[in-house]
């Protein structure tokens, strides 16, 4: 079966620094893939290149069997590839509800005429999206803060808004950049439970995370990146036993 997301030989450099030096990654449909590696391995850069924020210098990205290399970010979102950010800043002046509504697909209000005069279809769609936003908020336990500006939320709640915003776009695959980092343990656990639930319902997830206990509990397969390349991939136990992975984290033995 073709993986949902296939990255082949992806290369990217910033002013001569080779950040990605030929990354290969396959995220099987329905999987909860973990992406780990030491700081500076290029994990977030890989997400940025895959989600269209950076233009890769070489290599390909495919969604299912169709090529998605170099597509602009909004087309990738429309195609079902949605990502969250490590720094969940959002738009400081918008409320949680507005964040969710903003990333609903096919917003009728974006059409100038419909936005100005409002058509019956636009109102219906708007109501539909609002319903979805309420459902997602309830699910993520954000319903009591819907009208608060995101700046008033805790770090963990901001991460939940990021996830909620991503869900509004009806993703097929979710790229999560450290959604639990810097969040208090009980809320981090709650986020993990939400993710497991979403994955069970069929959502494919690719997760960057530094907490090995979480990776062990949630992810299969686990992909290891180091110095801009994919090092190895397999189950957590296989990867953890790999001497190259230990060297990447702890340094080479002399």
């Amino acid at each position, binding site marked *: 079966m073709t993986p949902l997301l296939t990255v082949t030989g992806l290369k990217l450099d*910033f*002013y001569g620094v080779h950040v990605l030096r030929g990354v290969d990654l396959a995220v099987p449909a329905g999987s909860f893939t973990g992406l780990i590696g030491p700081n500076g391995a290029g994990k977030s850069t890989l997400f940025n290149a895959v*989600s*269209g*924020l950076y233009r890769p210098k070489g290599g390909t990205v495919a969604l299912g069997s169709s090529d998605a290399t170099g597509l*602009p*970010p*909004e087309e990738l*979102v429309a195609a079902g590839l*949605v*990502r969250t*950010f490590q720094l969940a*800043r*959002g*738009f*400081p*002046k918008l409320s949680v509800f507005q964040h969710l509504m*903003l*990333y609903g697909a096919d917003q009728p209000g974006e059409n*100038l005429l419909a936005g100005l005069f409002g058509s019956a279809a636009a109102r219906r769609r708007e109501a539909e999206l609002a319903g979805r936003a309420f459902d997602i908020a309830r699910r993520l336990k954000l319903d009591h803060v819907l009208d608060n500006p995101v700046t008033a939320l805790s770090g963990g709640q901001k991460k939940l808004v990021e996830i909620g915003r991503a869900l509004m776009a009806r993703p097929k695959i979710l790229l999560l950049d450290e959604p639990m980092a810097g969040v208090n343990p009980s809320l981090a656990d709650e986020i993990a439970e939400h993710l497991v639930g979403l994955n069970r319902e069929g959502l494919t997830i690719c997760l960057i995370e530094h907490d090995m206990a979480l990776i062990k509990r949630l992810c299969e397969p686990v992909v290891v990146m180091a110095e801009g390349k994919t090092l190895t991939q397999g189950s957590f136990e296989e990867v953890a036993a790999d001497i190259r992975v230990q060297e990447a984290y702890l340094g080479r033995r002399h």
Partner: protein
Amino acid sequence: MTLLLQALINGLMTGALIAVPAVGFSAIFAVLRYPNFAIASYATIGAFAAWWANVVLGLPIIPALVIAFAIAGTVGVVAEESALSRLRGNGALIVAIASIALNLVLENIIRFFFGNDMRGYDLPLMRDMRFGDLRIGPQQLQSLALAVVIMAAMFAFLRYTRFGKAMRAVADNPDLARLKGIDPARIAIVTVFLGAGLTGVGGVLIGLDTSIDPLTGYRVLLSVFAAAVLGGLGSIPGAVVGALALGIAEELALIAVPATYRTAVGFIAILIMLTFRPRGILGERAV
């Protein structure tokens, strides 16, 4: 008492004139995240464009302002795209220094065409209006009204139009905006056009009060920068508040110290602000 009131009135007037280029400067900073010191020459270019329209072509002041806006905006975009945009990836400091160089180049191009002489707009001379012991120039009043209208238009644009909303989205979070299909490069061009255009209009309003020469913009650069820092770099309402505060502070200082120290007020204002509240009066984050 009269002295104080007169200083307040004068301060509000000069503040309102500084506010227009300060809004342009802050808009560019908000979206592109670097201080563009070339706005000094954009102001001068606007002033000369309006002078040419007003004195050579004989147009009234409002069409001259429109021409100043268009020409300063266009020069801003061309300069940005040809000289500054390729440096953006190297950090704000590099672009800021390049903008100082760009300013010198543009300033000398103006000199090349117009020379160093002072020029005045073709405006009727009018007697100051007197209210008791207070004096207000009709010309200043007109400039004040123009500044208010222009800024109101800018606020309406940012608040209610799709483009204005897209600009604010990019300023707040460019990556998140891109996921929604907003292209920051396109927004950057429009922002520079608006920012440089506003600065050009500001140059005209400042020139209306006195006269213009190739250093017209450069002389107010510090005040514009101080106003933006005071209000909070990147905050557009902040730029207006900062400009008014600075204008009043400058005029009040004149009561106590000789006029030659006037520019020192801008420096002192920046120093005090950066020491005690680095994000400015209305700024959201420290810069």
